[in-house]
C-alpha cells in the first residue's frame, strides 16, 4: 500500500520536474541565442518578468491573454485524450467569435442577460460543430484529423473574411472592416472585484469540469481507453465514434467560447483582431501541460504572460514582436523532446517492492 502511494508521488514529481526542467533549459537556450545576437539575456528576462507579472496592470494584461489560451488549449487537450491531434482551434475560435457577434447584433433590444447567454451558446455551437467535423471525417472517412482541422481553419478564416468584409460589414467601419457592434449593454463585464473579464472565469470552470470529466467519470475512463488503444476499446464494446465525437464537440465548444468571449468582452464586434493566433498558442499550452486540463491553467498564465511582455521588449529594447514566439518555439521543442526522459530518471522510478 505504502509503496503504491510512493510510486504515485514519484510519478507526480516526475510530471512536474521534467517539464519545469525543460522550460528552464529553453530559457538557457534562448538566452544563449539572444546573447549571440548581442543582447543581454538577463535584461530580457527581467523585462519579460516586468511585462508579465510585476504589477497589477501587467497581471491584468497577462490574465486577459491567458483566458482565450485556456479555452483553445482545451480544444487540443480534449481530443488528445481520445488520441486525436486536432490543431484547428483557431478556426473554431474565429467562427465562434463571428457567430457571437451576429447573435449579439440580431438580438439587440432583448434583455442583456439572455443576449449574453445566446452569444456564448452560438459561439460554442459553431466551434463544436467545426471541430466535430474533423472528428467525424476521421471516424467515418479515415481523413487524418490533424490535416483536416488545419485545412478547416484556413476555410474558416476565409469564411470569416468573406462575411466581415461583405454581407455582415458594418458600413460605418471604414478602415477596419467589422461587423456591427453588439451594444454596450450586451458587453460581458469583469469578474467581481477584479479588472479581468469573465473569460478567465469560464476558462477556470471549463478546465476543472474537464479535469473531473476525464479523470473521474465513466465517460472519461472510456475516452482514455479509446485514446490508449482504439482496437481494444472497440473489442470491449465501447462506442468509439460517439466517444471521439463528444470529445471533439467539447473541445470545439471551448474554442468557440473563446472567440465569443473575445467579441463579447474585448472587441464588441468581429474583425481581424480576432485572428490573433490564440488557436496556435493554445497548441503550445496544451502540449506543455501534457494535455492535462488542470495543468493548462498555470501554463496558460505563463504563455499569456510571455505574450503580454512582447510589447515591453519591443518598446524598451527595440526587439521584434516575434521575440516571444522564438522563446515559445524553443520551449515547445524542448518540452516535446523531454518526453523521452519519462521513466528513465532513477529518482522517479518506483522502488521495487
Amino acid at each position: 500500500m505504502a509503496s503504491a502511494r510512493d510510486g504515485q508521488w514519484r510519478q507526480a514529481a516526475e510530471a512536474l520536474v521534467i517539464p519545469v526542467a525543460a522550460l528552464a533549459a529553453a530559457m538557457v537556450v534562448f538566452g544563449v541565442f539572444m546573447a549571440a545576437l548581442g543582447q543581454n539575456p538577463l535584461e530580457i528576462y527581467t523585462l519579460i518578468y516586468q511585462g508579465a507579472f510585476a504589477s497589477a496592470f501587467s497581471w491584468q494584461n497577462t490574465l486577459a491573454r491567458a483566458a482565450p489560451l485556456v479555452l483553445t488549449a482545451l480544444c487540443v487537450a480534449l481530443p488528445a485524450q481520445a488520441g486525436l491531434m486536432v490543431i484547428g482551434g483557431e478556426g473554431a475560435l474565429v467562427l465562434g467569435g463571428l457567430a457571437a457577434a451576429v447573435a449579439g447584433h440580431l438580438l439587440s433590444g432583448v434583455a442583456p442577460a439572455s443576449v449574453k447567454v445566446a452569444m456564448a451558446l452560438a459561439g460554442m455551437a459553431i466551434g463544436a460543430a467545426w471541430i466535430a467535423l474533423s472528428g467525424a471525417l476521421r471516424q467515418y472517412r479515415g481523413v487524418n484529423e490533424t490535416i483536416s482541422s488545419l485545412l478547416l481553419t484556413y476555410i474558416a478564416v476565409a469564411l470569416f473574411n468573406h462575411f466581415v468584409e461583405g454581407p455582415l460589414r458594418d458600413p460605418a467601419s471604414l478602415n477596419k472592416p467589422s461587423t456591427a457592434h453588439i451594444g454596450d449593454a450586451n458587453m460581458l463585464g469583469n469578474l467581481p472585484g477584479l479588472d479581468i473579464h469573465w473569460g478567465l472565469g469560464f476558462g477556470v470552470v471549463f478546465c476543472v469540469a474537464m479535469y473531473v470529466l476525464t479523470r473521474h467519470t465513466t465517460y472519461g475512463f472510456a475516452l482514455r481507453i479509446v485514446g490508449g488503444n482504439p482496437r481494444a476499446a472497440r473489442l470491449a464494446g465501447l462506442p468509439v465514434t460517439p466517444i471521439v465525437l463528444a470529445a471533439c464537440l467539447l473541445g470545439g465548444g471551448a474554442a468557440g467560447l473563446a472567440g465569443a468571449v473575445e467579441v463579447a468582452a474585448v472587441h464588441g464586434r468581429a474583425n481581424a483582431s480576432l485572428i490573433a493566433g490564440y488557436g496556435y498558442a493554445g497548441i503550445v499550452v496544451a502540449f506543455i501541460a501534457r494535455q492535462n486540463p488542470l495543468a493548462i491553467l498555470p501554463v496558460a498564465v505563463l504563455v499569456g504572460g510571455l505574450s503580454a511582455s512582447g510589447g515591453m521588449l519591443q518598446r524598451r529594447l527595440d526587439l521584434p514582436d516575434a521575440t516571444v514566439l522564438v522563446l515559445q518555439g524553443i520551449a515547445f521543442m524542448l518540452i516535446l523532446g523531454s518526453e523521452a526522459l519519462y521513466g528513465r530518471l532513477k529518482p522517479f522510478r518506483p522502488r521495487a517492492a
Partner: protein
Amino acid sequence: MIELGWWGVPIGVLGGAIRVSTPFLFVSLGECITERSGRINLGLEGILVMGAMSGYAVSYASGNPWLGVLAAGGAGLALGLLHGLACNLPRVNDIAVGIGLMLLGTGLAFFLGKPYVQPKAPTLSAIPLGAWSDSPHIRAALQVNPLFLIGLALALGLAWAFRNTRWGLVIRMVGDSSDAARAMGYAVARVRTLSTAAGGFLAGVGGSFLSLYYPGSWSEGLSSGQGLMAVALVIFARWNPIQCFYAALLFGGAGALGPALQSVGVTSGYYLFNAAPYAVTLGIMIATCSPRRTLTGAPGELSINR
C-alpha cells in the same frame, strides 16, 4: 490591348498555376522524400517561411538571388535535421515535433527577418516562354521561373531514383518496414533523419521562391499555408513524385482562381475563392481516404495510417 473577356479566366488560372505551383512542388517533393522514409514532417510550413526569409536576406546581402536560394535550402536542411534528430528520441511523436517546428520556424523567421521587410533584394528573373504570342495575357502567363523547370526535372528524377537507385530503395524499405530494414543491416533512424533533412532542403528552396520571385518580397504574411498543404498534397499524389507535380499545378490553379475571376470583374466572393485550394484539398482527401483500408502506395510505417 486585346480584350479577352471570359477567356481571361482560364489563361489567368494557367499562368497562376505555373506561378503559384512552384513552392507547392518543392515542398511536396520534400515531404514525399520524408514520408517515403516513414515520417511525417508537419513543420515544413516553418521551414518554408524560414527559407523565404533567409533566401531574401542572403540575396539582399550578396546581390545574387541564386545564393539566396542556396541559403534557403541550407536553412531548411538545418531545420529538417532538427526534426529528424528530435524524432529519433524514444516516444517523441513526429506530428507533434512538426507542429513545434512550424511555430519555431515561423517565430525565428519573423524575428530574424524584421530588418528585411523594407529593403528591396534582387529577385530571380523569369524565362519568357510566351514570347511567340502577341497577347500580353499569354505572355504574362508563360513567364516561367527556372525553379519551376528545376522542380519538374527533380520530380522526374526522384520518381526514377525511388525505383532504380540504391538509396531510393533503401528509403522506401525503411518507410515500408523498419523491421525488414533493420534485418538488412540499415540504420533506420539515420536514413529517416537524412530523408527529413533532404525534405527540409527542398522546402527551404520552395520558400525562397516566395520571397525571391512571386510575390517577390519578404513579409510576415508571405506564406498562406503551402507548407501544411504539402502534407495533404503528398497524400493526394499517393507518394508519387510525378503526381506531386500534377497536384501542385492543380493547387496552384485553385489558388489563382480568385485573382483571375477578379481580373474579369467578378469581385463578389473574393474571399471565398481564397478558400478554394483548402477546400479542394479537403474534398480530395474526403474522396480518396477510407477508414477500412490504407491508401495504395502509402508507406507502411507512416503514423497517419495507423
